[in-house]
């Protein structure tokens, strides 16, 4: 085996482990469809804050806020967050109401790869609003047990 062929072979081996089971953009689209059904999802009103460049995917701060009066008549009923490359497409679902006063939810998430994150807000008037963010992850979360 010459050097060139050997190098080509090792490149193929390196690529293989990335093929493990994961959510895909299609799986994310399916998860979103399950929530919104046939309703139209419009961009806007939602702000999705997370760092664009993430050194450590194990704990990534994420903050979602939605413009809403949060009154009995017009409030955010739920905030859904999805990802496209973790093992599962769902991140969280927060249930809100007029008792919250402000539609803002923060947490910390794990990210297994560079990917797109989508937040969708469902209002009491039956509307869906969304925001998305593309993030670059240099150290992926949770590949194996820490020792």
């Amino acid at each position, binding site marked *: 085996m010459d050097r060139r062929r050997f190098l080509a072979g090792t490149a193929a081996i390196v690529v293989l482990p990335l093929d493990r089971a994961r959510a895909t953009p299609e799986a994310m689209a399916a998860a979103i469809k399950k929530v919104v059904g046939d309703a139209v999802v419009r961009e806007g009103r939602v702000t999705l804050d997370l760092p664009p460049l993430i050194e450590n995917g*194990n*704990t*990534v701060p994420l*903050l979602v806020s939605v413009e809403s009066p949060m009154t009995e008549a017009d409030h955010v009923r739920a905030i859904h967050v999805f*990802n496209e490359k*973790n*093992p*599962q497409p*769902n*991140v*969280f*679902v*927060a*249930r*809100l*109401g*007029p*008792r*919250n*006063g*402000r*539609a*803002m*939810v*923060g*947490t*910390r*998430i*794990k*990210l297994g790869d560079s990917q797109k994150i989508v937040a969708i807000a469902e209002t009491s008037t039956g509307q869906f609003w969304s925001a998305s963010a593309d993030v670059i992850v240099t150290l992926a*979360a*949770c*590949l*194996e*047990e820490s*020792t």
Partner: protein
Amino acid sequence: MANVLVNAPKTARRGQAVEIKALILHPMETGFRPGADGRILPRNIIELFTATWNGVEVFRIELSPAIAVNPFVSFFAVATESGTIGLRWSGDEGFLVEEQVAIAVE
């Protein structure tokens, strides 16, 4: 319960939306990772966190394995009357922790 950290104001004006932050120690094992012996570690996560204000539910969040170890959640609630904010975490393997903080509303 010592494994919980809650940050909420002790006093608030009536009608004000106050921010409540809660952190709990928990491994949030995803169920997708191999352990030291090569076998997949069983899933062990907190699935649900709820908050009540004097017994009335005001916030609920359903978590997934994508939530980081030692889950942190922040949210807002309107200060309606003095009393207690109840926080409850539940999940796999019968996990259940409850915590209460007092708040005075003027």
